[in-house]
């Protein structure tokens, strides 16, 4: 089964979710807007606008903020003031306030963008207190009672008309958010939520995305508040209280925090039960406290998660399997043991020149380039790094050409990973410069170095769980770094990124694994996928951090062959403990000890060096146990 199916040029998921909401909503609003049930649903839908945004922000991208109730209040009070006091039509007020909230969110978001997850969460925790504290005594805003409105969203006051308008707005929000989540920008956001460092290493502009996310969540919350005001005709300050924030969180968590549709249904469900039962609404705090704890413990993805896993097991090929969760659909394979993995052929497709994918053509051209072996690509001059008083690297100089494999080894703590980090951009050197293809990149962050062709793998495998192999590799092919978040709603470049990723996977012989979920793979395969991801961006400089770690002898041989092939088309700087591996493939080996480069030479010189032998005891193949098998 291939990945997502597309209808009318868009992913199936968003269309189905939107259609469901639209149809169900119109039936209810059209038919029973005047009944109690109908009015509860309409009210719930105003909350659903907010929770849909929260699903994207908190659930999907893991940006934990507690400011939604306050922005909802901004929308509600904004419309109430413009309509009730100034006399504007509610709908116009809604539009104006929603747009204005973007500006407010931008200001707050900018203040926040340097702050990490924890600071953001802690600060926004105070927002409801501040807002409620102010509103309670602000007489011009109705004080502790609230503000009335004079006109509904759809002028004329008809419950049915307003209900239909609300449903249409909600459907539009669902459409936009589900499309965003399914797009290439969505993949960026998901990666960012899992690991900011990994995202940066793949070229994602994390601060910009975080700011955009904050603005999106805030604007949607404002919109929800505006619709609330326009349909309920009265805005009380309890809308911004901490308890209101809690209610929103409950709706999100119970419904399904990573699912937009789940968030919408969660809002409707919770409002419904609160509305129909007096007992429930009296004890609401207690119930909510227990509910959120239970959800977190048992099924973090809420009802959507439960439905999703049941459905997948029962009918993985049916369309709705993708609807209730935003994970890429995959068909789980019963776990394979260690050893041979189905799907990796012994031979690699790398050597074949007959294929004509753009990927292969790129690398074929590089292999043919005679001058590459002698043209300088990377220059490291005088690089040093210290933490407090501890000197980790001192005065490192090295030069690498455009092609070839270069080994970096040394005892643990010698500074190898630090040097790799400095070249890759995740660590700032205390002194010295890094020059790539003639450009001084010392001040550039990792994401911009990625754009210039630097790619890396990590010591501990950093793949994104819960997504397929294909999507994991696609992160490196996104080319969306300069796009704004909104573009993801309109057009998704994910299909093309996935196609590019597929080429990279096939290049390494991993094509059959494209739709497997990464958590189900063995360690060796995961490392290969990471390598594919690193290669997918067609890097000019590849930084590998202990790629052989945890691999068996046979697996290391395969890796050796693969690296040899890669070394013919790009420059590889390889940190490794396996000295046999390094000596076999590296054309030059550098040895670090206590932060200084103590040896540079060929494999031959390496093996016979006294210094190296005493430093890395057991370096000589004859003393490594089982080395010559």
């Amino acid at each position, binding site marked *: 089964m291939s990945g997502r199916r597309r209808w009318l040029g868009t992913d199936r998921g968003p269309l189905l979710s939107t259609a469901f909401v639209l149809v169900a909503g119109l039936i209810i609003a059209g038919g029973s807007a005047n009944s109690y049930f109908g009015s509860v649903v309409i009210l719930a839908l105003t909350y659903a606008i907010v929770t849909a945004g929260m699903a994207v922000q908190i659930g999907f991208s893991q940006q934990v903020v507690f400011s939604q109730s306050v922005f909802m209040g901004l929308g509600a009070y904004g419309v109430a003031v413009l309509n009730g006091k100034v006399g504007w039509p509610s709908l116009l007020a809604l539009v104006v306030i929603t747009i204005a909230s973007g500006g407010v969110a931008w200001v707050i978001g900018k203040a926040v963008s340097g702050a990490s997850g924890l600071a953001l969460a802690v600060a926004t925790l105070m927002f409801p207190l501040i807002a409620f504290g102010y509103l309670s005594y602000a007489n011009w805003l109705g004080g502790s009672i609230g503000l009335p409105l004079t006109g509904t969203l759809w002028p004329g006051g008809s419950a049915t008309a307003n209900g239909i308008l609300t449903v249409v707005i909600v459907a539009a929000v669902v459409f936009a958010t589900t499309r965003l989540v399914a797009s290439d920008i969505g993949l960026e956001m998901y990666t960012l939520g899992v690991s900011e460092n990994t995202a940066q290493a793949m070229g994602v502009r994390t601060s910009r995305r975080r700011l955009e996310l904050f603005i999106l969540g805030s604007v949607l919350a404002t919109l929800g508040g505006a619709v609330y005001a326009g349909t309920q005709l009265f805005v009380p300050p309890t809308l911004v209280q901490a308890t209101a924030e809690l209610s929103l969180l409950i709706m999100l968590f119970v419904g399904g925090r990573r699912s937009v549709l789940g968030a919408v249904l969660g809002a409707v469900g919770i409002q419904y039960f609160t509305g129909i039962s007096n007992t429930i609404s009296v004890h609401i705090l207690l119930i909510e406290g227990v509910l959120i704890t239970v959800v977190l413990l048992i099924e973090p993805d809420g009802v959507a998660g439960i439905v999703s896993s049941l459905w997948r097991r029962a009918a993985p090929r049916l369309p709705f399997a993708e609807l209730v969760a935003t994970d890429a659909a995959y068909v789980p394979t019963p776990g394979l043991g260690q050893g041979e993995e189905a799907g990796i052929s012994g031979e690699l497709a790398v050597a074949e020149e007959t294929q004509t994918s753009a990927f292969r053509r790129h690398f074929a051209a590089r292999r043919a380039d005679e001058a590459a072996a002698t043209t300088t690509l990377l220059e490291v001059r005088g690089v040093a790094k210290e933490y407090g008083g501890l000197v980790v690297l001192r005065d490192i100089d090295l030069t690498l050409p455009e092609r070839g494999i270069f080994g970096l080894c040394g005892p643990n703590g010698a500074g190898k990973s630090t040097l790799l980090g400095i070249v890759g951009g995740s660590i700032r050197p205390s002194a010295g410069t890094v020059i790539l293809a003639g450009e001084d990149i010392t001040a550039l962050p990792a994401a911009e170095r990625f754009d210039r062709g630097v790619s890396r793998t990590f010591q501990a495998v950093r793949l994104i769980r819960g997504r397929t192999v294909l999507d994991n590799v696609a992160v490196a092919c996104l080319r969306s770094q300069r796009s704004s978040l909104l573009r993801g709603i309109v057009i998704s470049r994910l299909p093309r990124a996935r196609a590019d990723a597929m080429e990279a996977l096939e290049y390494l012989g991993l094509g059959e694994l494209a739709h497997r979920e990464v958590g189900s793979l063995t360690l060796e395969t995961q490392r290969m996928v990471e390598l594919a991801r690193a290669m997918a961006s067609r890097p000019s400089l590849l930084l590998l951090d202990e790629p052989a770690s945890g691999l068996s002898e046979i697996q290391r041989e395969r890796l050796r062959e693969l690296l040899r092939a890669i070394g013919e088309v790009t420059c590889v700087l390889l940190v490794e*403990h*396996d000295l046999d591996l390094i000596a076999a493939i590296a054309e030059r080996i550098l040895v670090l000890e206590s932060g200084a480069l103590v040896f540079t030479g060929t494999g031959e010189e390496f093996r016979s060096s006294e210094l190296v032998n005493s430093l890395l005891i057991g370096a000589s193949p004859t003393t490594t*146990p089982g080395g010559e098998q």
Partner: protein
Amino acid sequence: MPRSWTPRAGASAEPVGESASALAISNLSVTYGRVAAVHDVSFEVAEGDCVALIGPNGNGKSSIVMGIAGLVHRRGRVEIFGRPAPAGDVSFMPRHGFTLVPERRQLYPQLSVADNIVLGCFGRTRSLRRARASEAHRQALELFPELSGRMAQKAGTLSGGEQQMVAIARGLAADPRILAVDEPCLGLAETVSRRVYEVLRRIHESGRTLLIVEESPKRALQLADRQVEVRNGVVVRA
């Protein structure tokens, strides 16, 4: 506490019983999530032995000793002096005479050297007074003259070699009959490593059982009576 804590002085004179087995490992498996780091490993360590656990990095050696110590989730059977150790109880092994000096030291950087060492007694007693007065604690301090002026210093400010000394001293403070040391020379210069092995030799000669995990076995093999080779989570040679 199940048994009283008698300070030891020199070689063990205790009657050994049916078997001289200090540690008996059977069918030990350690899995992290889906990754099986250690597969069905079995071996024995006799009292007074010095055993070197060797093999390339990332192949399961550390996981074996951590599994024995009860620090990671494990399956299988670990017996110490005939007693089966329950999985998941981190205080059982220190109480019954097994301590681990972990890879990369794992000291408490903001606490003083003296505090780091005295905390090693935690496995045996909860009283600070008794810990400080214990014979084992005093012996641990004696073994490392280079630490004598540094007792009040924060452990995080010491050099790598000194930190390794502190870590070993902490391991000895509980007066273990079996001391396991994981990569004692990680990140240390040659001269310091020699000093560390000198200390380990003295520890072995005083009658304690040693289990040393080493990636580069040359030094370990000089000291060890036996070696157990681990590749890919399985014992290849014992």
